[in-house]
């Protein structure tokens, strides 16, 4: 992964904007930001961002590659799309934030311990394994991602909620052993593998 990063640094040397335009989902739009700041004011977790979107766009133009890609900020996106609908320049900000997070993650330089990054990975693995989400396994892997002790502690905290869900038949303990998923998992996995291959080729990422 870090090889990819080094390769990208080499390839785009002084032009992070170009790198973003080429490799980041909807990255073409970054240059169109006019710095009004409406996105920052519209984000539900705005306060939690070290760098609000318009600042990230400016940092990209200023070539602050490291600061952007290792930032926690994009990982604060809740995908509420408020920034998109309010942006007077109609930048697909949510998607750009997703794209930057994904790109940093793929290069292996996204913040290691960021909980959303870790959850996102667990989620993807969970849903692609059988083709459908296994909510119980998902929660459990999430609680135990910091080890057994932390997991039990978290689990205990969440226990009343779990029980509520069980009581109302919205959680199935049997899912731990017998979640069914889709029939054609083989086809699905092949498809995703191919898709990843093509994407990596297009973006020049070593897979």
């Amino acid at each position, binding site marked *: 992964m870090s090889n990819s990063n080094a390769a990208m640094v080499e390839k785009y040397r002084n032009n992070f904007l170009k790198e973003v335009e080429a490799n980041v989902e909807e990255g073409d739009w970054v240059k169109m930001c006019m710095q009004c700041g409406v996105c920052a004011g519209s984000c539900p977790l705005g306060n939690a961002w070290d760098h609000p979107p318009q600042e990230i766009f400016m940092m990209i133009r200023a070539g602050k590659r490291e600061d952007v890609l290792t930032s926690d900020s994009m990982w604060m996106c809740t995908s509420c799309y408020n920034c998109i609908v309010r942006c007077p320049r109609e930048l697909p900000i949510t998607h750009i934030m997703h794209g930057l997070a994904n790109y940093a993650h793929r290069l292996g330089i996204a913040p290691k311990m960021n909980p959303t990054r870790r959850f996102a*990975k667990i989620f993807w693995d969970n849903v692609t394994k059988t083709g459908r989400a296994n909510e119980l396994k998902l929660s459990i892997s999430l609680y135990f991602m910091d080890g057994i002790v932390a997991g039990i502690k978290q689990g205990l905290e969440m226990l009343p909620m779990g029980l509520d869900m069980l009581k109302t038949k919205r*959680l199935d303990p049997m899912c731990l052993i017998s979640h069914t998923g889709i029939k054609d998992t083989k086809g699905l996995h092949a*498809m995703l593998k191919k898709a990843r291959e093509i994407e990596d080729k297009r973006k020049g990422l070593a897979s």
Partner: protein
Amino acid sequence: MAKEYSFYPGCSSERKASAVNYMTSVESMCKTLDVKLNEIPDWNCCGASIGYAEGGELPRHSLNARNIALSEKNNPGQDIVATCAACWLGTKETHERLSKSDQLLADTKEALKEAGLDMDYKGEVNIRHMVEVLIEDFGYDELGKPVKKPLEGIKIAGYVGCQTNRPFGVDGESFENPKYLDKLVETMGAEPVEKYDQKVTCCGGALAFSEPEKSQNQIKKIIESAYDHGAEMIVTPCPVCQLNVEVYQGMINKKYGTKFKMPVTYYSQLMAVAYGHNAKESGLDGNIVRATQLEEIACK
């Protein structure tokens, strides 16, 4: 004659999943409205709002494209209808992107081939949320006709949330103050809380898991405002909204000393009850915070 749609239920609607009661009430509602939902066979997860991080672009679009391809193959000519906001948004987004980029379409087709599928992408079918079907294909007048037990006297805050509202929106309504839930509530004979000012506030979505504190802060605002404006119940069109706003009430009460006990229901539950279905058929047994007012009407 029954209206037919290609149906994409999504993971949370599965048996014993978090939105199983949504599914139950949708089935009852559709029975009354004579809507036939043809489930897309072997559908897969849409990738949800968090799938981007590991999934990237093409794998994520492939997931949704697979569902579209399966729908084309098995339910040709039918609009795809989703009940889950994220499923709808993810599928619609892919659908839109594929229509705009030949490159992406070609790449997606190449990946789909691995799953033995092809896409005859013509962009004829629409990707729709269930509430769009209700509003556009029926209309409020039509939806009001089968009401047997008007939900009289219940004050309900329409919590629209994010993903049925943005970026695509429903029925061309304003992103800042969409009214469709209020209108549905009114159609069912209940009283909409029109001044509910957090109706499009984000509940935190998937970050309820990874950033619980920040999300619970959002959820607190959403519930508090409902109380402040006199709501006795919240209604929502989204499984994530429903889950987040309902299940964390206990934790929020513990942490902030609040006394939240606000039922959070789906629009389809209101409709099922108003259409005369019983509590079980309306999925009311699935509500952690019991919607007692609905239960009472359902039992009448």
